[in-house]
């Protein structure tokens, strides 16, 4: 697993795969105030992004990867 779940914070690892979307969704479903730390993330599969958007999760830290950050911000501002 490349996502590390803390109490109220999910730490995303380098490449978050499609398999992890379901886990992330379940985790977010029980934690409405959860925050995401994407600092380490270099890529995440679209399904994870969709879960983040659907759950309106707050991004506490954007990824270091510039391109990924641009795309995520383009998605999350909506």
């Amino acid at each position, binding site marked *: 697993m490349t996502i590390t779940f803390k109490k109220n914070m999910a730490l995303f690892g380098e490449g978050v795969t499609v398999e992890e*979307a379901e886990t992330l969704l379940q985790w977010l*479903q029980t934690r409405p105030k959860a925050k995401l730390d994407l600092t380490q993330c270099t890529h*995440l599969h679209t399904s*994870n992004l*969709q879960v983040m958007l*659907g759950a309106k999760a707050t991004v506490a830290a954007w990824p270091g990867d510039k*391109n990924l950050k641009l*795309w995520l911000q383009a*998605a999350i501002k909506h």
Partner: protein
Amino acid sequence: MSTVLEQFLTESHDFLQRIGQSLIGLENTPGNASQMEELFRLVHTLKGNCGLFDYPEMSRVLHAAEDAMSAVRDGRLEFSGELADLLLDSMDFVTMLLGEIEETGECGAGHAGSSTLLAEAIHKFVDDYIGSDAPEDAGACSQDRTNGRQTVSEALRSLEDAPEEMRMEWYQRAVSGKPMLWVQYSPEAECFFKGEDPLYQAMQAPGVLWRSIIPSEHWPALAELDAYRCTLIFRFVTDASMEAVEEHFRYVPDQISIVPLQPYMLALPAGDENGGPVYEDFVSEALGHISAGNMDALGRAARTMLELSSASLWLASALRWLLLILEHEPHNQAASRAIVESLRTLESPAWETIAAQAGQTVPDTVQEGEPESLEAPLQGDSMANVIFRAQLEMLNGSDDSAWLPGRLKSAAASLKACYRSLGQAAIAEDIDTSLEKSLSQGSARPLVEWLEDRLETAGQAHPAAETFDALTIKPENQRETAPSEQAKVTDDEPKFGRRAEDLSPAKTLKVEQSKVDRLMNLIGEMVVAKNSLPYLAARAESVFGVRDLSREIKAQYAVINRIAEEMQDAIMQVRMMPVSFIFQRFPRLVRDISRKLGKEVSLVLEGENTEADKNVIESLADPLIHILRNSLDHGIETPDIRIAAGKPARGTLTIRAAQEADRVYIDITDDGKGIDPDIVKRKAYEKGLIDEAALDRISDQEAVNLVFAPGFSTAEAVSDLSGRGVGMDAVRAAVEKVNGTVSLQSERGKGTQIRLSLPLSMAVTNVMIIESSGGIFGVPMDMVVETVRIREDRINRIKNRQVAVLRGQIVPLRSLNDLLDTGKPQLRNDDGELATLVIRANGENIGIVVDDFREVVDIILKPMNGIMAGIPGYSGSALLGDGSVLMVLDPKELL
């Protein structure tokens, strides 16, 4: 290399071969529908398979070929020699790519150019033929247009989110001629299950300047969210070329919409509306300047206005755009006017309408997924609805202003243009009447009422039009609203492609040759092991004196022997291949060469099912091609010469294969001009191949066979000679390598026949074992003429050479010990006779003196490997039943 790829490669070669056959078959019988279907199916499947891998070059060409074939199948295109040429070229290209993939594991990007050229050539050929007389195409085109306009408006609305400075920068780039594209990528809902990652795909897109990701539908409650159903839409603006974007999304072209942005389309003012539109004075003044063409004055007015306004206002944004457009496109009055007019409503100009009115061809180039599933009238009406509503809104503004007449006229003009494009030009009169009423009353009312009426009727006629309020039509919706005929078509469609798998499962296994070879080796060892049983039986009797055991061993040996022989036979069968394996490439070869030479030739193939060992068959390919080329080039005459000679214009080339006992005969017969023995004789004499005496002595038949003599075939001979001569000695060498022979018969003016005689199998060789200087050697039985014992006193000497007279013929004798240079004298038997093996080599009998003869055995001949390969005089080695190694001689090389 992965297993899938390996399988793809093998299958593709198969497909290509069959495609080639079908193409040539179709050329002969162009009306053959079933062959056409077959061809289409083959190309379609090949293209589909190719899609599994990342070979866009191959896909592109196959796709074009498929398009062309589909056109032929539907009767829109006639099958012709030129089309066949194109398609054959394409298949050759694909074959080349496959070869490259096989060698390097990948397909070089360097072929992209030729691939595009080929694909374009095919498309052009199809288009040229079909021309503009395809109504359905025209329909599709207009659908594209309306649909495209809709996408354009969608694009514009999404662009409002991009910061103004950014858009201004794009504008400047676009004005300077850089492409500026708006791309929408709507992945299908199930795409995650296909291993796609749309975000990654979008992120890797070339030249992205700005991006946005939106959900395609409202987010459901979190508890109901399906993580694995993709509901995102990706939009971005790029300065990459259309081709680059298409290339990037080449696997999902139907999920992509591309809108090329005209510079002015980026002018979408945004900002604080500050209580609504109150700039009428400025608007009328500005419009006046535009009508007068006084752009400088407009610019001055706009600058003044801008200085007076707060920068965050919508007005200020619009003015900035106005100034930018005035600076870069001072002649684009329509754009300037639209921006000025937008100040009345504080809504971004409807650039899509302006683009359409200005006759811009923008929407033509718009690509939208599945345009064919759209219904043109519905779409057209919906677009019209959008325009009508916009006009209605405009007209509903206050009536009491000086610019009312202008506004009315412009609305009427838009409406008329709309109806014209919907093919309802007659309605224009109604609009004119309402317009006149409105103008005379000084109120927009009559026009508004008329328009509202129209909208109502339109709404009833097309209830679906309601949904277009939202302006966004998802591909799913389009599918739902697609007319039923479309659905029917798709139901009937998959007769090709998918259903190819409905064919009964193949009863053939594809096995690598190495596996069969291994079996072959194993059975060889088995035979050897089995052969040791008789030795054992002999030992049991002679050494241990147990006679009964010896008998039992012999009985067991008989059983094992039978099974082993059957096994050997079965494995030989596996290695057997029909000659059609090489014959099938001849139709194409004959067609190509005869077309090039301007000759008419029909090729007749007979006995294609005759089988022989794979190695034998494969070794035949090159010699046969050589012979065919010769026949076509030198044998068969051009049609006019043939007619002059009283022959049919069309020459016939027959290749016949047949099996006789343990040999396969292949006859290549042509009805060309044959070989002139006199010329051959003269040439051979000039080359020093025969002497003067032979010149008169040899028969015509012997003379024509001189073409096989090494050194006969030179370039000079080719040009002067009537018939063959090109590398016939090479042909003979290749055939002899597999223990075959070549003979040639020719009659001047009538034609030539070349006969190849080949062994059925090379696996088992029949050799005679001989003894010499204490060792044993094998000599291939097919070279042995006879074995004789010659008394020493009957051996004569001619010029230091031993000879003997056998059956009235002088036979030169050579001692094997001398040939092998062992330095020992040959042994005589008790009667003082020398054992002599008479063999036939290079057309004459030669006696080889050995120590003694032994039995004849079947052996599995293994060629010499490694450092042994360089030793001349031996054709290989074999294991004998007692475990000893038998060296098999190659007498031709020895002598």
